[in-house]
């Protein structure tokens, strides 16, 4: 939060002057006909990307010299908001005079930078970055068509955040190296998720194969598996051999990580009173707090759940006794 996010301005205030001018007067808007391409001695490529039902669609026309692979002329048509029009126009402009191979290297970030009024101020607000991503995708599609190959063959990496162009492998590495646990941290480290936010979790503007929350979950599971391994392989002392203080700590940790949240959501909580060995059993005495005390399930369902988790995580001989 903070002052800037409390009274949101309109997204239009954040468009650069260049973007606004291009929205009003796109230079490369239009079509290239078969005849026009032929007159240039060029091959005509027409590529479509996006769908009207998703709110954005763009069509790119290229006249490519078949001898040199150079894009002689480049035009576009677009169903989309003003920034989609401006991005498409800029993209078409950047393609001109480049070879198809060079054009494929143009990214959405190049398109966005080309529309900046000054190098340090973004040309469009974060949630509009996806418009330039589409401009990038349609180039790949046109190039694939020209070369008769699959569009995916231009992308060696799986890109999770397309706005900031952050790859799956980069994200996995950064999360692991820095022990990241929240989306905000990922954004701070990589900028992924800072723009249109589609890559954070399902339900955004673009559908993804994998989301940032999935990566966090994946890393969390990995860490848990590792901890479990440590325990199993005797990396730590077994629960039965711990001192009472260690046992209390271990039980507390398991409750914090697996149980307490559940109870708090229902308006309750619990505390550990004592741990005693009783023959082959280890008895853990607990007290329910808040809404849990007196709740019918505190002596049945909830109790079995707590006992089950503690047995699974620590020792099979644990018994939980509410006081």
């Amino acid at each position, binding site marked *: 939060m903070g002052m800037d996010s409390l009274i*949101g301005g309109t*997204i*239009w205030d954040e468009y650069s002057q260049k973007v606004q001018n291009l*929205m*009003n007067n*796109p230079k490369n*808007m239009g079509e290239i006909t078969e005849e026009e391409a032929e007159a240039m001695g060029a091959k005509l490529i027409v590529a*479509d990307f996006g769908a*009207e*039902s998703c*709110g*954005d*669609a*763009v*069509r790119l026309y290229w006249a490519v010299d078949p001898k040199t692979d150079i894009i002689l002329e480049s035009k*576009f*048509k*677009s*169903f*989309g*908001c*003003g*920034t*989609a*029009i401006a991005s498409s126009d800029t993209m078409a402009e950047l393609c001109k005079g480049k070879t198809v191979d060079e054009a494929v290297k143009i990214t959405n970030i190049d398109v966005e930078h080309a529309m900046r009024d000054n190098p340090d101020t973004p040309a469009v607000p974060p*949630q*509009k970055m*996806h*418009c330039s991503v589409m401009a990038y995708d349609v180039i790949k599609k046109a190039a694939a068509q020209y070369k008769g190959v699959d569009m995916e063959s231009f992308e060696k990496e799986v890109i999770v955040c397309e706005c900031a162009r952050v790859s799956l492998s980069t994200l996995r590495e950064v999360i692991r190296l820095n022990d990241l646990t929240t989306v905000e941290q990922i954004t701070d480290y990589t900028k992924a998720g800072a723009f*249109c936010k589609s890559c954070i979790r399902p339900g*955004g*503007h673009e559908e993804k194969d994998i989301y940032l929350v999935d990566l966090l979950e994946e890393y969390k599971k990995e860490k848990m598996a590792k901890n479990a391994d440590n325990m199993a392989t005797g990396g730590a002392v077994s629960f039965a051999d711990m001192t009472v203080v260690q046992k209390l700590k271990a039980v507390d940790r398991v409750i914090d990580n697996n149980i307490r949240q559940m109870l708090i959501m229902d308006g309750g909580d619990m505390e550990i009173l004592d741990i005693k060995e009783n023959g082959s059993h280890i008895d853990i005495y607990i007290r329910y707090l808040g809404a849990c005390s007196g709740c019918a399930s505190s002596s049945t369902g909830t109790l079995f759940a707590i006992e089950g988790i503690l047995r699974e995580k620590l020792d099979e001989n644990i018994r939980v006794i509410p006081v």
Partner: protein
Amino acid sequence: MRVYLDNNATTIVDPHVFEEMEPFFVQKYGNPNSLHSFASETHQPLKTAMEKIYAGIHAPREDSVVITSCATESNNWVLKSIYFQYILTGRKNHIIVSEVEHPSVIATAKFIESQGCRVTYLPINHEGLIDAQSVRDYITDKTALVSIMTANNETGGIFPVQEIGEICKEHNVLFHTDAVQAIGKIPVDVQSFNVDYLTFSAHKFHGPKGVGGLYIKKGRELLPLLHGGSQMGGLRSGTLNVAGIVGMGKAMEQAVDALDYEMTDIKEMRDAFEDELLKIKDTFVVTPREKRTPNTTLISFRGIEGEAMLWDLNCAGVAASTGSACASEDLESNPVMEAIGADADLAHTAIRFSLSRYTTQEELDYTLEVVKKAVKRLREISSSYAYAPDGHDSKL
């Protein structure tokens, strides 16, 4: 020329309303709860304003019309209090709202849903309207509340609140309606509507922003959302917004007086304007005119994305609106267009023009010319228009 056709978002404050409010800033600024003349000189104006507000919605004196800060507060209050009184206590477990309610209802319903309440999001039909009888299908003996708006903000579609109210009464279920888009456009009568709660907001009918209200039927009292110094009978604490209440009173009086003009003259102007818009090829209107508030037109221009249209309109000084894709921060398409489930390609092409009693014929004529130009330019850019199913070319 600047033309304001976004009156479902907010309206100009009527100069007479402003005039009545003015003394309560610099001269009569006392706190009504104090014990001195600065306080007492606010009492009569407040009383008069409350009388006008009660009269405007036909509320009996024994019922409560609590002044709030906005419709969002009123809507939050009803749903959250019902949650505390009926759901949390286990007496009931379910509420029903329409799927096209204002975000202040939908988001609050989602919140109490996350707290364990079952919520039915009632679907709209192909005309963007609610079938009253469909409410019956979802009511159970565990339903605490039905909340359905009187008129929809996007389409202007008028929902059958009276009939829904009867069904709720029959089943002993509480009924709330968000009448924000109805006051000053169609008659609003809490008694014939059969409502227990009704929300309204001054700035939608030429009153000031920051003041709204909630009608509460006698015997249906809610828990206070704001606890404090027990203003408004302890139902809604907070120092009274004297100028706001006085302004809302005057605005309500004028809205009721202007109802005839709104339902005849404004409707005629809107209809003629809409006829002209529909002469443009490949334009679509969903909800039938007779089932809409008299001031609203929601129209789709095939092949033109909504925000692009707004941009061109704004460049020519015309203010309209869209709930579609790019205009809102969360990048969703128009919820009503989606709910209708009509042509997916049209979901991002809807533009809403909403008139008021301040709209002039000259403004509409000008807007029409601006729209035609924008449609021509944007369809020339459009990648999808030339591919429209019946093969129109991109020229108008």
